[in-house]
């Protein structure tokens, strides 16, 4: 469906530059869906936007509890933005627990819309309220709108023949209707979507539609609210856009890389939050020649992908931190076999099971070093939801060109967060050449032509890749140390050292094949903020904000974490302060310090939540003031 946004014919309304809305309710209240719809309709209006889903690990945690609250934050703007915003302007709280969990994060003066029907004694108690916050004055710093969402929804659907319990389930559509009215979002796309989505259960569709319309009407008629406001389309680069999450972009990037390389995708994966959606997405697209294999565990996920890679497919495995921890031994085998393989780690809160549905970026050192022996491999990290597309292609390019496993890092924030994406021209995507061997490449002692699987390209040090089915190139490879060139088993001391060094040199040499890191902001500033991964948006916004108020600061962001860009040492040299914001205790910081002997300092946040811009601004200004 392609819509060109026509100016809506309606009364001229006041325009605001943007708003941050947060929907919060029980895990069963459909907040993710509500937020998602609000986002989509804003996307169609041409706003820039950024989302932050935030939900517990339980499927439907007990109703009314604070730990069971599921929230979805979306920021929409008429200008370019790169974060979902530090705190909401408007909170929709479906029950006391949601209010309890969320209200303390709100800035003073924020708007709160509550579903008063849920504010009974039982729910207040469950949420841990001793007194009713709607009446005890504790919310006096906010603008509170009390709306009996449940009962109006019930009324609205009365007559459709829906059971009262089912009717109550539509109250999120009431909320969506109300907020859509407040921000003059178009009605039709949502109604259409309801029809398609709930097509198989017409009663549910009808009920949701009625609730949505009731919410919209309530805004218009209740005279409770100020007039609706508008957020104009953002002045984005021209072209065709879609709203995309990191996991979808990553999946599509893999499909693109498959097309560009001619290698069919084999995905060996075991479900795990927040990576499962890539498995889901890829398994939908079999017409692209994609084989998805839900393996018995993570080890079978990676080893099956390695088997497929041996067979000439694009072997991929997707997982999160606990899965990577299980794949270490097989990754070592892939390093030793020197076959292309892509391992995608959608990081989440750790250690151990940790916080499965929350974001974190504490798997970097595991990605770099989580294997025995010297087993170097390239590591990359995506920086925004849509960048996952490019990062996937780049990771595949390196894996195939250099015959190496590659780890691509993303995280829960990117995976589930969404933003508008200017669709690339598919014909301008880079070509990836598998360059399979097709004939003997060497001469044996008796002068006969032979195939030596570990003969290398002198420039890239990539080895030859001959796939089964190729006549005359039969060969055996394995995890025991191999003789240089022939690949036969060898325990010879000098050969081992040579092979260890060749494998290291091959990966290190990739530095010549990747872009230099760019410095932005005040290029020669004393203070440089070095980032990696999903901190990109928040760092950018923070640097802009500091500079807007006169502070001098530079920033650089790494996509390639191993090897590092050739110019990075140069970029860091001579700065008074190098700050590295990380959602861990300082993992890139360790790498940078060791590599460049620069006194880089980590700005650490390990809360299962992305950095806010405010947090970073404070730390940057501190550093500029010579204090950090």
């Amino acid at each position: 469906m392609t819509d060109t946004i026509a100016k809506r014919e309606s009364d001229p309304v006041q325009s605001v530059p943007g708003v941050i809305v947060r929907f919060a309710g029980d895990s069963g209240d459909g907040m993710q869906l509500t937020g998602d719809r609000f986002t989509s309709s804003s996307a169609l209006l041409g706003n820039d936007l950024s989302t932050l889903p935030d939900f517990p690990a339980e499927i439907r945690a007990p109703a009314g509890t604070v730990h069971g609250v599921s929230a979805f934050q979306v920021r929409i703007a008429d200008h370019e933005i790169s974060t979902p915003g530090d705190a909401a302007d408007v909170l929709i709280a479906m029950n006391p627990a949601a209010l309890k969990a969320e209200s303390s994060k709100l800035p003073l003066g924020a708007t709160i819309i509550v579903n008063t029907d849920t504010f009974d004694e039982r729910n207040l108690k469950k949420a841990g309220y001793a007194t009713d916050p709607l009446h005890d004055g504790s919310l006096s710093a906010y603008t509170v709108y009390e709306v009996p969402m449940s009962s109006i929804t019930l009324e609205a659907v009365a007559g459709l023949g829906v059971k009262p319990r089912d009717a109550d389930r539509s109250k999120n559509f009431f909320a969506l209707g109300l907020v859509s009215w407040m921000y003059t979002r178009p009605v039709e796309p949502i109604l259409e979507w309801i029809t398609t989505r709930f097509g198989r259960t017409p009663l549910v569709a009808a009920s949701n539609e009625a609730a949505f319309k009731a919410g919209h009407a309530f805004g218009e008629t209740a005279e409770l609210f100020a007039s609706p406001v508008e957020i104009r389309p953002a002045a984005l680069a021209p072209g065709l856009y879609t709203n995309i999450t990191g996991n979808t972009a990553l999946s599509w990037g893999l499909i693109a890389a498959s097309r560009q390389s001619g290698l069919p995708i084999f995905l060996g994966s075991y479900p795990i939050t927040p990576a499962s959606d890539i498995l889901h997405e890829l398994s939908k697209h079999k017409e692209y020649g994609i084989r998805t294999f839900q393996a018995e565990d993570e080890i079978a996920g990676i080893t099956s992908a390695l088997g497929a890679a041996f067979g000439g497919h694009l072997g991929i495995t997707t997982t999160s931190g606990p899965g990577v921890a299980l794949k270490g031994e097989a990754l070592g085998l892939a390093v030793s076999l020197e076959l292309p393989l892509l391992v995608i780690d959608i990081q989440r809160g750790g250690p151990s099971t940790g916080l499965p549905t929350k974001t974190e970026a504490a798997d970097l050192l595991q990605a770099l070093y989580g294997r025995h022996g010297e087993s170097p491999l390239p590591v990359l990290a995506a920086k925004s939801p849509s960048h996952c597309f490019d990062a996937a292609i780049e990771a595949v390019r390196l894996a195939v060109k250099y015959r190496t496993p590659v780890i691509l890092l993303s995280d829960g924030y990117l995976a589930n967060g969404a933003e508008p994406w200017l669709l690339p021209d598919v014909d301008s995507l880079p070509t990836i050449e598998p360059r399979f061997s097709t004939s003997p490449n060497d001469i044996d002692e008796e002068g006969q032509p032979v195939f030596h699987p570990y003969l290398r390209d002198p420039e890239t040090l990539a080895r030859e890749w001959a796939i089964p089915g190729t006549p005359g190139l039969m060969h055996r490879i394995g995890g025991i140390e191999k003789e240089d060139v022939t690949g036969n088993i060898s325990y010879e001391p000098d050969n081992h050292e040579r092979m260890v060094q060749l494998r290291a040199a091959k990966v290190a040499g990739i530095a010549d094949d990747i872009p230099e890191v760019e410095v932005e902001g005040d290029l020669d500033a004393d203070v440089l903020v070095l980032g990696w991964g999903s901190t990109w948006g928040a760092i950018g916004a923070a640097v802009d904000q500091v500079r807007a108020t006169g502070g001098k600061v530079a920033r650089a962001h790494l996509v390639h974490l191993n090897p590092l860009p050739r110019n990075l040492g140069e970029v860091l040299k001579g700065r008074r302060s190098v700050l590295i914001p990380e959602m861990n205790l300082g993992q890139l910081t360790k790498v940078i310090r060791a590599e460049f002997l620069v006194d880089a300092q980590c700005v650490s946040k390990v809360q299962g939540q992305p950095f806010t811009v405010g947090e970073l601004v404070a730390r940057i200004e501190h550093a500029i003031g010579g204090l950090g």
Partner: protein
Amino acid sequence: MTDVAIPKTTPKDWASDQEVRWCPGCGDYSILTAVRMLMPDLGVSPENTVFVSGIGCASRFPYYMNTYGVHSIHGRAPAVATGLAMARPDLDVWVITGDGDGLSIGGNHLIHALRRNVNVTILLFNNQIYGLTKGQYSPTSEVGKVTKSTPFGSVDYPFNPISLAIGAEATFVARTHDLDRQHMIETFRRAHDHKGAAFVEIYQNCNVFNDGAFDTITTKSNRGSMLIPLEHGQPVRFGEEGERGVVLGPDGRASIVDVADVGEDALVVHDETASDSTLAFALSRLAAGPTMPTPVGVFRAVERPDYGAEVTAQLETARQRAGNSGDLAALLRSGATWEVAGR
């Protein structure tokens, strides 16, 4: 496999140039010979054949075959092979594993490959010991076994690999041993020709750490009285003169009788193709270990869709349904999109 005529080969064509590094006298040699002798008969070519193994003495096997080969990591061969066989249904994929590799660390991958019916031929070299790590007991070692890790005797009750495979929904299950080349060749041939996962347990002598473990049943002089050859459609009988046989009791239990006592008609008739796996299971219970009369041959051989073929068929269906074989630009536009006009 293609329709193109496969050039004739000899066993030598299937031998790689690498020196075989097993201990002198190891049973692995005779298995290698049997496989090399069989290959020219199979109508397949070396370049379309892949041997995948884990780690262990047995797992060195691929190095000695002039085919494609992967010597992977401990226990993971069935998973590596699953990926390969799914991606490349045109290949002949063999898995070589040991009792430690395939039943201890790799037990899960094995049973999952069997239930999925992945098109691989699995040869499990069962020497009831860990050879390569110098002699610890394995999941098939008998209770009481004294090894380096069990100086006072093992207290682990062993797996019966045949029962386990049947319990894991295997479609082809067989047993053979390293002292009977012809039996090995015939068994491997059947396994190879089976569509889907074929599981073959091979009793294999490790003459260094578990010498003679199977002598009671496998030596020339003992075979006649101690091996129970399973033949499809035939009553199950054995003994030098065929004087003993197998009957099923009212509770399904298989037991050994003198044919003279019960008459041939009372013997159970082997049906490897039975849709219900109970008969194969019952037969697998006859011998708790290789010291009792032990069935050899094909326990079970039934048809079930092969995993790789099914997966590939879904791809074809999807291609036909989509009417394209993957238009990337269309994919990128498959969600809601909007145009931002130039300024």
